[in-house]
């Protein structure tokens, strides 16, 4: 199938009429920008109205170097990409931390600002009239002036960029980028550094636009600001959404369809209506609205749902190497004088306890006792006002979850924080992120395959352990609540936990599912994993745990084996009300 498409791509310029040869070059240029948006908007969830500005940065850099310094366009490409990189890095640092709607507006802001600079700094850029007579790109002395030759350059670069992006999206980084968008807390709990990942996503998308800008100016061999305007950026966003911004083929579909549509309408509408000028844009708008009504998630998901599904082979081979360093003597986790208040409310007050190696410790208490706050303090989601947390002999007080997960402190979520659009296996593979090393660049170049295979095998093994193996290739959104809890545990197991923090794992489960869960937790202890469990469910807790810590109003009121705690008058009073 792919070979067929490639052959078609190679033959196309020689069978198409000249008009379409040019159109196909513009198609490739648009697709480069839209692919970047697929990563940035579709996967990372950062909507950008500024991609055309990056095209302009690279395009103008190359044009100016060629005209003022006589540099070859190839030097221009490198310099243009370097300039795009710097711009994207600086603007990204300013923008990616912005929340919610501020980010898209910030992209509009610098898009408009850069566009006006391109049009108004006449001494440098030639203003709106632009700069003409740019050199053609030459390969081994052959000047690519003919669109049929330029076709190979444009499509070659596009295919390369698409491959790099595909590798990235299907790597540990790609999974994290997708996770980040749905749930930054969950992503950080498995080792991602959200701002850093967002910044690189931003830069990679900008570089795609940079290549497109360079291709554009050396194809038309003229540069002025108009192809780099806000309107152009919006057009690229439209292409992305129409094609289906969440999938790579969507970028090709959207870019091709709308590049063609614009041209066809310019030819067709005057033929039909006998007038020109006013009506194309109306037809364009109506077709756009029509497509979105037909396929609100874009054309590719609409088509994909009608294609036969292929089940990938089961992951096999050996998993990732287990944790090497031995655990130090003494208690695994020491909590000392932990205190946290919210405004005037003292949620946790001077709490101290220890978790010993190989035990299952239950943390219980009536509603409002401060269990969840304690859990979040240990998991690094909240920072304590006072007190210390020592894990494996190292102080981790107030450390971020992406740091502590590497030490083997792994959590699950009470309300499953899974990613419904990803498969069960991919969700479990998120757990392997802190155990894998491949840097982003080697993922993009496909140098991470061995590690990826082992990560998949490791994640699959975790699914087998919790009994979800046969659902590995389903979307996580299709799981029942009980299965989602299992997947939460599987993801945590894939991170090779030393201490597993389980946040109300039994909430909302049926009796049978609870028994299965209890069996699973016991098995994990036998495999050497220590478990700290927060739950309401007395029956589960009493039969499962080795020791209990009971909290009430933010303080520890009892500690010991379940039988002793059950008879403790203080505990009984806290739970049943102290009428006596």
């Amino acid at each position, binding site marked *: 199938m792919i070979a067929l498409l490639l052959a078609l791509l190679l033959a196309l310029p020689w069978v198409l009429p000249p008009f379409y040869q040019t159109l196909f070059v513009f198609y490739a240029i648009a697709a480069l920008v839209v692919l970047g948006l697929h990563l940035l908007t579709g996967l990372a969830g950062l909507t950008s109205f500024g991609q055309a500005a990056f095209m302009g940065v690279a395009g103008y850099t190359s044009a100016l170097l060629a005209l003022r310094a006589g540099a070859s366009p190839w030097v221009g490409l490198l310099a243009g990409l370097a300039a795009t990189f710097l711009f994207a890095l600086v603007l990204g640092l300013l923008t990616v931390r912005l929340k*919610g709607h*501020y980010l898209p507006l910030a992209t509009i802001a610098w898009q408009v*600002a850069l566009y*006006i600079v391109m049009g108004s700094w006449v001494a440098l850029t030639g203003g709106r009239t632009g700069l003409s007579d740019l050199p053609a790109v030459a390969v081994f002395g052959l000047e690519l002036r003919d669109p049929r030759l330029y076709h190979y350059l444009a499509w070659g670069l596009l295919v390369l960029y698409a491959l790099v992006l595909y590798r990235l999206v299907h790597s540990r980084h790609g999974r994290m980028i997708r996770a980040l968008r*749905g749930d930054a807390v969950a992503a950080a709990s498995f080792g991602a550094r959200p701002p850093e990942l967002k910044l690189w996503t931003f830069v990679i998308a900008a570089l795609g636009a940079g290549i497109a800008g360079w291709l554009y100016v050396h194809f038309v061999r003229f540069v002025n600001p108009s192809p780099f305007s806000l309107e152009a950026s919006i057009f690229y966003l*439209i292409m992305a*959404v129409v094609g289906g911004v969440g999938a790579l083929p969507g970028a090709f579909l959207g870019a091709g369809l709308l590049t063609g549509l614009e041209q066809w309408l310019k030819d067709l509408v005057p033929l039909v209506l006998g007038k020109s000028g006013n009506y194309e844009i109306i037809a364009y708008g109506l077709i756009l609205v029509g497509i*979105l009504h037909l396929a609100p998630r874009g054309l590719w998901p609409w088509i994909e749902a009608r294609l036969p599904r292929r089940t990938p082979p089961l992951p096999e081979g050996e998993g990732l190497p287990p944790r090497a360093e031995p655990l130090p003597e003494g208690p695994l986790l020491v909590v000392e004088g932990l205190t946290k208040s919210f405004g005037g409310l003292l949620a946790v007050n001077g709490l101290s306890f220890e978790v010993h190696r190989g035990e299952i410790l239950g943390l219980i208490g009536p509603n409002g006792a401060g269990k969840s706050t304690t859990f979040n303090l240990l998991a690094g989601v909240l920072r304590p006002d006072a007190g210390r947390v020592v894990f494996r002999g190292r102080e981790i007080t107030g450390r971020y979850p992406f740091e502590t997960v590497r030490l083997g402190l792994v959590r699950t979520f009470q309300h499953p924080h899974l990613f419904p659009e990803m498969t069960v296996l991919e969700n479990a593979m998120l757990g392997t992120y802190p155990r894998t090393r491949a840097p982003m660049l080697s993922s993009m170049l496909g140098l991470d395959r061995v590690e990826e295979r082992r990560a998949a095998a490791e994640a699959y093994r975790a699914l087998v352990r919790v009994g979800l193996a046969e659902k590995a290739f389903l979307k996580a959104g299709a799981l029942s609540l009980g299965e989602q809890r299992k997947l939460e545990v599987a993801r945590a197991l894939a991170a090779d936990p030393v201490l597993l923090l389980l946040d109300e794992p039994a909430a909302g489960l049926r009796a049978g599912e609870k028994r299965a869960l209890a069996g699973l937790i016991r098995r994990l202890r036998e495999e050497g994993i220590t478990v700290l469990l927060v739950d309401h469910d007395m029956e589960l807790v009493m039969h499962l745990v080795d020791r209990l810590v009971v909290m009430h109003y933010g303080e520890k009121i009892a500690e010991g084996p379940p039988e002793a705690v059950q008879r403790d008058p203080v505990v009984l009073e806290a739970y049943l009300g102290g009428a006596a």
Partner: protein
Amino acid sequence: MDPLIFGFLLSDGLISGALYALVALALVLVFAVTRVILIPMGEWVVFAPLTQAVLLEGRLPATVWLSALLLLVWAALDLRRGRTPLLLALAAALVVAAGYLGLAVPALAPLVAILVVLPLGPATFRLFFEPLPGATVLVYLILAVGLHFVYKGLGLAFFGPEQFGLPALLAGEVAVLGLPVPWQGIMLVLAAGLLMASLYLFFTRSLFGKALRAAAVNRIGARLSGISVREAGRVAFLLATGIGALAGVLVAPLSNASYEMGFLLGLKGFVAAIVAGLSSYPLAVAGGVLVGLLESFSSFFASAYKEAIVFALLLPVLAWRSVSSLELEEEE
């Protein structure tokens, strides 16, 4: 800078600020209730004065037919909903009648223009946004861009590319602290203030206004307490169109009107709305005034870079708003 120029720039900035504030208010209203970023808003703002101008030239503007047509399509879609289609058909007839009335009595032209533009908003919501409940903000945005293209194209087809000058509703100037300010500008600022005050009362005192706010804060909760989110959306669009059309009619005598002004106008209103986090009405007004003042003063110092400065200066504002806002990450 001498005080006269300063005063002039100040009054100029405040007048355009009032316009942007109104547009921002409408955008915030629509977004809060429906999660639609209403890009075609700018077109509707200019449609009103353009309709008025064509009426004054003694022709029946095509917007009359557009409004009536959209209302009739709406009636056809809701054919099985009791009296609704009848009322909608009646409204369509009213719009056409108002158009002819505007031709006969030129003094009524501004009012007729607002009335003619008014159905465009709710009808657009019913026809294009209601069939896609629960789409993402991004899909709604692209939908809105598509509709912006349609309305912009229609604007060119209806009114042509030329600029229309419109007579002031209140002619003449008045000296404020020794500075000549057109009455029309003062009227715009006053109308903006009045509109904001009445919107404030509407949202805090009337049951319907409260229901609208409830629908904005929590859609499911609002539905559970018997508030129709669809109806809330239509009302939000109606109010937005009304605010926009009124603003357009008031500002046009100061600056002329042409079909292509809408987009930039909408964009600046959007900028102001974003400063407000697309959620706070008082901040939307402040944002509008801020954008107006920035634009006015930067046009004096570096007119070629006027818009660039407005947008570039926004970055720190955005960073500050983003840091100080407590809202959670968007789940889109």
